[in-house]
């Protein structure tokens, strides 16, 4: 990236659909020394707002983009350089900077693919290299593949990635193949059959983690490794107030405070995020299927099944990641990880740890995948 000692800070691409973002605020001043992972500026997209973190250390010399500006992905936001780089060189670099055009394939390839499994249309996205064991991402209760918007592209740099909308979720058909973890895990296996993928690393968030663990128990040969994120299936506690609130909320006013519980920083819950969830929840059949799912999986306010407690003995590489301030499933469940698991509890993150601490999470996941 660095050219003549100049490191550009560019508009990130968060998720498959992001084309542009708006600079909300700079968090560091010109002349400040920046460390890796430090939030540099806040960017808003039509889906979410988040901080752009420093990929490299350096001295912030120029804030090129101003607060309020809307710019395309990869547009120059700022430049870092050591003091010996002259202002004239910086000016020349900024003047000569061109936003790289989207690669031809980017727009040609469909963002999403729909595959029919057991009569149910399933939305999924595939990215990354053609070879290697793919990484399958399974979202949680009421979620969709968009929950991985800060992760898919980062992991696709090292391995093929597949993210799906579970049946009854996102833009897959609003119906369920059944309401138990076994039903859902065997559906995921048939989905993999349908897209002709024999073996995967599985990353599961929340309910998706319990599904991933169930899949590993049922078909161990199919699962190369497991990463369980704020996962269900490692204990019995769950915030039933959240589950009930999510199922029953019918308006933006009711849903927003419920969804805020997912994050350490509730300001991340934008109007657009709540609107997207409402659009999903208003589809015919969705409130009923969420109710049915929660009654089976979270009977009486407890997790009914804990498949991830039975992983010991499978000899499977397991990573367990939690947000320290998870208000949905307590981070203390990380202690129930199988022996030998790589466990990380990240401060400053809630249940959506893969969104709130995206770069830490991506680094952890890459490390886990490299060792698996």
């Amino acid at each position, binding site marked *: 990236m660095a050219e003549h000692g100049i490191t550009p800070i560019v508009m990130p691409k968060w998720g498959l659909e992001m084309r542009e973002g708006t600079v909300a605020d700079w968090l560091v001043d010109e002349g400040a020394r920046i460390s890796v992972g430090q939030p540099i500026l806040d960017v808003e997209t039509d889906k979410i707002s988040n901080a752009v973190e420093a990929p490299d250390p350096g001295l912030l010399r120029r804030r090129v983009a101003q607060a*309020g500006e809307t710019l395309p992905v990869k547009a120059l936001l700022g430049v870092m350089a050591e003091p010996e780089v002259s202002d004239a060189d910086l000016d020349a670099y900024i003047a000569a900077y061109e936003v790289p055009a989207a690669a031809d394939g980017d727009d040609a390839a469909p963002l*999403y693919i*729909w595959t029919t499994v057991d009569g149910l*249309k399933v*939305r999924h996205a595939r990215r990354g290299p053609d070879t290697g064991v793919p990484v399958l991402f399974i979202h949680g209760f009421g979620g969709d593949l968009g929950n991985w918007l800060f992760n898919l592209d980062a992991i696709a740099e090292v391995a093929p990635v597949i993210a799906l909308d579970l049946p009854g979720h996102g*833009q897959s*058909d*609003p119906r369920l193949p059944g309401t138990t973890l076994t039903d859902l895990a065997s559906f995921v296996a048939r989905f993999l059959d349908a897209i002709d993928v024999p073996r995967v690393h599985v990353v599961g968030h929340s309910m998706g983690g319990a599904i991933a663990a169930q899949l590993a128990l049922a078909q161990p040969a199919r699962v190369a490794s497991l990463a369980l994120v704020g996962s269900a299936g490692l204990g019995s506690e769950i915030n039933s107030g959240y589950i009930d609130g999510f199922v029953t909320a*019918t*308006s*933006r*006013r009711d849903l927003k405070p419920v969804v805020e519980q997912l994050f350490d920083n509730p300001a991340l819950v934008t*109007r657009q995020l709540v609107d997207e969830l409402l*659009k999903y929840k*208003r*589809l*015919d*059949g969705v409130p009923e299927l969420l109710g049915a799912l929660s009654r089976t999986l979270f009977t009486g306010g407890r997790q009914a099944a804990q498949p991830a407690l039975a992983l010991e003995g499978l000899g499977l590489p397991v990573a367990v990641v939690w947000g320290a301030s998870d208000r949905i499933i307590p981070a203390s469940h990380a202690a129930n990880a199988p022996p030998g698991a790589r466990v990380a509890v990240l401060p400053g993150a809630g249940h959506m740890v893969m969104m709130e601490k995206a770069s830490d999470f991506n680094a952890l996941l890459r490390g886990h995948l490299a060792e698996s």
Partner: protein
Amino acid sequence: MARKISMKQAINEAIDQEMARDPSVIMMGEDIVGGAGGDGERDAWGGVLGVTKGLYAKHGDRLLDTPLSESAYVGAAVGAAACGMRPIAELMFVDFMGVCFDQIYNQAAKFRYMFGGKAETPVVIRAMCGAGFRAAAQHSQMLTPLFTHIPGLKVVCPSTPYDTKGLLIQSIRDNDPVIFLEHKNLYGFEGEVPEASYAIPFGEANVVREGKHATVVTYGLMVHRALDAAAALAKDGVELEVIDLRTLSPLDLDTVLESVEKTGHLVCVDEAHPRCNIACDISAQVVQQAFGALKGPIEMVSAPHTPVPFSPVLEDLYIPSAAQIVAAVRRSLAGGRQ
């Protein structure tokens, strides 16, 4: 799955899906099938602008072409609704409501009340509204205030294909008479719409753009004018909050009040004539309920108190513009106290 379709297609899809789901849904109107009595294709017209094209082939005689007698078929639809059907009556242009108004405001709107809550009238009356179509004074009016005035009627006027599908499905499922007004200049407007059925509840305004300096409250085509105004003002650092009421009855005043309490400045925009219109109504209610939050005069932007001109030049001048909204926001901000 979601894909981009036009508002016209969204209307067609909503009716199609509700007819497939519920056999009591029927539809009547002038030329909504078309071709009856001729030798050619029955499904020839699909309504004056082709909105219902293709529905006859799927649902057959549940779509009924009627004579040019609005009072007869709107009355028939109201009666069928009182007897357990869920009729949709299409009126082409809202301007024709005059000939069937007794059936609407004095019959349909009164049944639940006058029969002690025992009667339900789940009828939807759809019609095109609004100016800009070069269709002259009798086919271009924005008559939303007339219906909003009547207790017992629900009044819907959507601005996007997504809202159109969800609000029309809600209208069909609703157990009260609903006046569903479609701005004809938005028929070609495209947006993302899920294929699956969904209903948007009435009485929930949509904050289509967030801002902290001033609030614009509007509905229908004017939502897009307000968004244009917001984009223009953003260049000068003025952040406009734009609220789309979506349904005028019931009205989501809470969302408006919350916004005004944040911004302190209100501009009400309505394509209808300025006397006793939605802008007046919102202004009056905000003054009554949130006077202390106002930091400047409320401004209103409406069409003039004249019939819609047929001259294209005059018609374009008649319709409230983004520039007028920008000017109104500036007046409110300039007249403000700190």
